[in-house]
């Protein structure tokens, strides 16, 4: 048995290599160069270490090595080998490792593609460099989370004495679908980070062509997510007896949201390419799929809501107040804390950069937007280091705003206010800069269908989200 500390050290080392890779990409952000060998090599080392950890965990499951606590919880010696393998991603730690491995592999794929194919111009090269830089940072964060939550702790003696052959896998999970559905979904989750990275890069640097470099990866992610949702529906119908293909289960709806966001993003990008629309909103829409995958993971794994997907035990003290219950969960679940921290920090960073970019592009509210951006960035930094505290601060504000009536509604209000605040430079007035931006696409003005199509997409987005939220 390899001690967990050594395996955690490997994860920390991989995280360090990913950060070093990001650092090695920094010169390319200015010079618009192709990936340096050093950056690519460090990223390759990080990816290899992550995949090795995943494979090691899978072999421990196949060998039913219940001396590791995580293996103990999700398999047993009398379980057949396919379900032993499936145990690898049946719990929080394993699924995070799988997600991280897909993310690292995606980042590596992006880097290799950038090395092989030359960019159309300098702007595209800069957009690519920003994308690699941000993706490497994400890989580092995910690996740090893997190391922190430690999937390789030894099993306690009391557990082994009580169940000497292991805890076993939930019987409803013993289906062929578990071998395909979760890995495919996590691959889609990983791919959703690419449009986000490209959009953040665009917002930070002002470089164009960001959409072009991210679109193919976004399409692949959408395709995998579509297949995965379909497989999940089949699984529900044939095996789990959830009551049909679709049960409007909280977790099902939570997984539908990123798919809708993906669809909206792809649709918007198509319109942007044809008519120049969604210049300002596009980066925001590109970030939503990844943010909503984080939300979906939090929903699936927290046990906050009673769900047919609650294959992992809820960890909360049962508190009728859902907000307090969620904070209780965060207190005992470091991996969930990571997801919440990443969600809040990414969203706050997105708003900070978006606000700043809108002010620059629209020539408005420069000083105000600088202050607003700084506040959002400060909150992002706080959320990254103290996720539970940052979220509790939001809940407290929501509680105060609604007078204790509904923290959930207050949270929704705060989110909308934050978005409006960030979008102020775009919303205030109409000036020459705006006309210049729109004038770059004369086709948009000439097309009689453009206005109708814009309305169509926005209505689709709004109604879909509202309908899902209502069913939720």
């Amino acid at each position, binding site marked *: 048995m390899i001690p967990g500390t050594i395996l955690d050290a490997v994860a920390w080392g991989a995280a360090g290599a990913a950060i070093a890779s990001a650092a090695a990409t920094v010169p390319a952000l200015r010079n618009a160069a192709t990936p340096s060998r050093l950056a690519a090599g460090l990223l390759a080392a990080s990816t290899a270490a992550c995949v090795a950890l995943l494979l090691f965990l899978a072999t421990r499951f196949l060998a039913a090595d219940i001396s590791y606590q995580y293996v103990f919880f999700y398999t047993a010696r009398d379980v057949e080998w396919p379900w032993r393998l499936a145990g690898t991603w049946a719990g929080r730690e394993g699924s995070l490792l799988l997600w991280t491995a897909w993310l690292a592999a995606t980042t590596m794929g992006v880097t290799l593609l950038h090395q092989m194919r030359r960019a159309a111009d300098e702007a595209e090269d800069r957009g690519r460099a920003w994308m690699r830089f941000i993706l490497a940072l994400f890989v580092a964060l995910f690996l740090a989370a893997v190391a922190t939550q430690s999937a390789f702790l030894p099993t306690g003696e009391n557990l082994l004495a009580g169940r000497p052959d292991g805890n076993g896998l939930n019987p409803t999970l013993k289906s062929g679908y578990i071998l395909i559905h979760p890995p495919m979904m996590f691959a889609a989750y990983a791919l959703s980070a690419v449009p986000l990275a490209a959009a953040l890069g665009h917002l930070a640097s002002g470089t164009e062509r960001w959409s072009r470099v991210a679109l193919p990866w976004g399409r692949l992610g959408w395709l995998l997510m579509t297949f995965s949702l379909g497989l999940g529906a089949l699984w529900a119908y044939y095996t789990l007896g959830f009551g049909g293909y679709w049960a409007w289960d909280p977790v099902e709806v939570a997984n539908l949201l990123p798919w809708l966001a993906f669809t909206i993003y792809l649709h918007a990008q198509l319109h942007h390419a044809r008519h120049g629309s969604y210049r300002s909103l596009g980066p925001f829409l590109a970030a939503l799929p990844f943010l909503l995958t984080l939300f979906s993971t939090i929903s699936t794994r927290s046990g906050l809501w009673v769900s047919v997907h609650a294959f992992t035990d809820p960890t909360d003290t049962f508190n009728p107040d859902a907000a307090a219950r969620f904070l209780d969960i965060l207190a005992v679940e470091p991996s969930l804390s990571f997801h919440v921290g990443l969600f809040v920090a990414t969203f706050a960073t997105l708003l900070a950069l978006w606000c700043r970019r809108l002010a620059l592009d629209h020539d408005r509210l420069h000083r105000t937007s600088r202050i607003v951006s*700084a506040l959002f960035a400060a909150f992002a930094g706080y959320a990254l280091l103290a996720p539970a505290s940052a979220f509790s601060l939001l809940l*407290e504000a929501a509680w105060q705003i609604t007078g204790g009536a509904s923290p959930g509604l207050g949270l929704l209000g705060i989110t909308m206010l934050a978005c409006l605040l960030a979008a102020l430079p775009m919303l205030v007035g109409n000036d020459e800069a705006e006309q210049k931006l729109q004038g770059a696409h004369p086709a948009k003005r000439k097309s009689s269908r453009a206005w109708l199509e814009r309305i169509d997409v926005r209505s689709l987005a709004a109604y879909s989200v509202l309908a899902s939220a209502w069913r939720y």
Partner: protein
Amino acid sequence: MDPGVRRGRAAFLAPMALLLALSGASTVAAQGETQAVVLLHHPYDRVDPFGIPYGDGDTFSARHLAVSQEGRFDFPTFLADGVVLVSSLPDPARPYIGTLENYTDAVESRLRSGSPGTLHLQASLGDDEGNGSGNGNTDGNGPATSGNQAIAASARFEPASDLADPQGVAGLHILAAVVEDFIHYQPDARISNGVTEHRFTVRALADLGAISLAQSQNATFSFPLDPSWDVSQLKVAAWVESGASFGRFRPGEAIQSAWTPVGGPGVVQRQKAVLVEIYSATWCTPCLYGDMAAEALAVQYAGAAQAVEDEGAHYFQPPASPVLAVAAALVAGAAMAAWPGRRRSGGSAP
């Protein structure tokens, strides 16, 4: 005032005062009366730390296996008076409300069966001077010796006038259990249903043996006090159980029950009290709702205290490392504020 009148008043008031005092004393006992006694049993599987061995199993499954529909019990299982069974969560779509409604209906239906007699129960803490095994006896002797502390209790059942069993065919037994409230325990998240304050947990259980309806007897017993138990949260529960089908009673039916805090004034249970037993496990997810429903029942029918929530603290939680978190916020905010802007570059094509 005429002294004769005074004496007359005194002669009238003194017995009245005595009567009031006596009625007051009986009121103290009546205050302990409840409509239900709630017990939470845990499986003895060594993963759940609250399970204790009893017979060939644990305190619940060993006694009630005949009631189960499939030869085993789901988690959670609810049993009112040993005869009304609610398996698992009756309405998974409304896990808490649905469960509570079913449990409440069961308790209400049992309450309508009426009281079969009076159960007297007292419990105190003293030196364990005897066998300390938790076994009871019905011979009226006190607890025997060993020098450690023990919970000593006595129970006596007085049958109602319509309850007669001169042949002893009912095989009535008195059983007693030590129950601890508000045990704080939080296992690893993956084997936790999230309940951290465990209520009405059965710590010890003993069958005190058969009793005769013809002759009211005291059953006394002692349970050795485990040092890990919180004495202030301990209660002793006792109930009378029918061994065979007898009159309106079914085999295994708890006909009367009562509980009282250890060291309290004791209870004289005249009205019907339903024995509510719930089979729960710390690792069982649906048991979260069973435990919650049990607490609600205990508050409504058994005079239990509601878990107190801190009204002062809303949601905000300070970070574990405030300096680091605030420093990160300041650095990120300052960096964003100082970052020079740059307009779009590279044309407008996507």
